[in-house]
């Protein structure tokens, strides 16, 4: 197991570095660098004073150095937890990330927990009662969940809340540690909207896996030795069906993060996603770079954890 974990970890580091290089180079291919954007924002004609100003900012930000040198400097600082200074918010990017990250993490975890809690049992019911009305209903719900784009579901829920309950997204975000009830009240709708979306594939996968597993010999044996239905379903069938579901959740981690960005925008949650969209529209490159880096880090960590879990659950994988 240890060797498997080490080998898997060796793939993690180059991917993360590669992603950070990619983003770094990409954001420097912009026509007209950051210094020009900062100076010419007013849209005035370029004058010698401004050109001198551009040179000054370039030197100050180190933009006049070769790109490899700039990257190494950035990486060195990033590893020490310094992501530079936000042009937009006039404060260190690290501070923004530290403030926003827990909120997005909370939303993501809530979404995952809610989705799994409601999708796995429904998938089991749907498989155990194959081709009954319960099965058809579950499949209908999951297909509709897959076809509605997440931003449309989110906007529809927001509309229903505004229209029927006069609920508006709160202006101030309350931390869970200050006031848990208020905090959960703020996050319940984005959580439900996204959980509905990601629960659809989880449901379908649980169902198809269960259908396959209940036809296996060991399930027949368990039944033949007189185990109760519940024990057969949960101890034997479900335990063996969940493996692909676990990988799937990791696989969809990317979509989960993308969905978080959209949910935060719709329901006015001031998290990483909101910060990223703001930074992109204001061309606040240090912030874009830091948030993208942190998101890649989360995404890769999620994949790493899923792989380790998979290897731990299924010995065939770790010895392959």
């Amino acid at each position, binding site marked *: 197991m240890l060797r498997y974990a080490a080998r898997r970890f060796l793939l993690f580091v180059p991917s993360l570095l590669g992603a950070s290089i*990619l983003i770094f180079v990409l954001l420097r291919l912009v026509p007209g660098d950051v210094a020009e954007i900062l100076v010419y924002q007013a849209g005035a004609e370029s004058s010698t004073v401004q050109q001198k100003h551009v040179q000054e900012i370039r030197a100050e930000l180190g933009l006049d150095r070769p790109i490899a040198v700039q990257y190494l400097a950035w990486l060195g600082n990033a590893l020490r937890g310094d992501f530079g200074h936000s042009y937009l918010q006039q404060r260190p990017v690290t501070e923004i990330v530290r403030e926003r990250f827990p909120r997005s993490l909370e939303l993501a975890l809530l979404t995952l927990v809610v989705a799994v809690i409601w999708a796995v049992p429904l998938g089991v019911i749907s498989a155990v009662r194959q081709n009954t009305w319960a099965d058809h209903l579950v499949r209908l719900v999951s297909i509709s969940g897959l076809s509605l784009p997440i931003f449309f579901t989110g906007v529809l829920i927001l509309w229903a809340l505004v229209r029927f309950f006069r609920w508006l997204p709160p202006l101030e975000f309350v931390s869970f540690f200050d006031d848990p009830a208020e905090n959960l009240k703020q996050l319940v709708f984005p959580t439900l909207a996204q959980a509905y979306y990601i629960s659809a594939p989880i449901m379908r996968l649980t169902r198809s896996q269960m259908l396959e597993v209940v036809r296996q010999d060991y399930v027949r044996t368990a039944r033949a030795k007189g185990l109760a239905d519940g024990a057969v379903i949960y101890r034997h069938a479900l335990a063996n069906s969940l493996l692909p579901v676990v990988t799937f959740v990791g696989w969809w981690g990317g979509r989960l993060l993308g969905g978080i960005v*959209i949910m935060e925008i719709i329901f006015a949650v001031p998290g990483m996603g909101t910060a990223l969209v703001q930074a992109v529209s204001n061309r606040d490159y240090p912030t874009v770079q830091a948030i993208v880096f942190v998101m890649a880090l989360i995404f890769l960590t999620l994949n790493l954890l899923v792989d380790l879990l998979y290897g731990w659950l299924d010995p065939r994988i770790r010895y392959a």
Partner: protein
Amino acid sequence: MPEAAERVGVATEVAEARAAARASGWLDRLRWFVASQPLGAAGALVVLVLILTALFAPALAPHGPKDAAFAPYLSPSAEFPMGTDHIGRDMLSRVIWGARLSLYVGLTAVLFGVTLGALWGVVTAYFGGVADSASQRVVDSLMALPPIVLALALMAALGQSVTNVIIALAILLVPTAARTLRSVALSIKEMPYVEAARAAGASEWRVIFRHVLPNSLSTYIVLFTVNIAYAIVVEAALAFLGLGAPPDEPSWGGMLTAGTQALETAPWMIFFPGLAISLTVFGLNLLGDSIRDLTDPRLRGGLG
């Protein structure tokens, strides 16, 4: 018992497939497609309507998509079946032109992205070695970024325009296509016919273009169809976040954003574009699923 039932099922499938092979007229083929893939046929119908709407948008739309010539926030009526938006543009016309924008962006992005990725995957798999592992690391790096986040970063670098959305989406599609086609090409490479072609003295590139590429075509087609819906959704999502096509372009996602500013006064501004996207995605998914069923030899039953 289930095995017996399965055998009967396979037998009927085989019979159906034989009947299909015999069917010569296109009408017979169509009838066979509708009978064997009813959901796929429904999806095809939706897609057909979408394509016709996109093609004939200038004739179908009563007004220009950017003409702010009417009163804002008019509710749906005989004159404006989908109402008007916040600056007085006809929503029906914008939704119709939206079909053209979605399809244009989706198709071109997938054409460039999947084709580039496919060629990349096949060529690196065929030659292997250092170039292959280096290219795999690049694919890893691209895949380390969550798709929407990568798209946002690309839009930050490129700037907002319809062409840049296409470029960003194409880049998004390259790594998955490269990885999938690489694994397909790796197994084709070991096939006896490839060995035979090489033994007969065919050049490397001839083997790639005459043997490996044609045999990975079915995977390419499946990737192509499946990703059109995906590209359309991501385009709409980017526009929804205000970072895709510029706001005056008739993008369904952008229309939704405008609608969220007036949820209570003008809910029609979210309903119609939202329904248009959902229906499009639903139709494309149904069609994509049945194309996958038809091209997957394990599901096709003895046609070969």
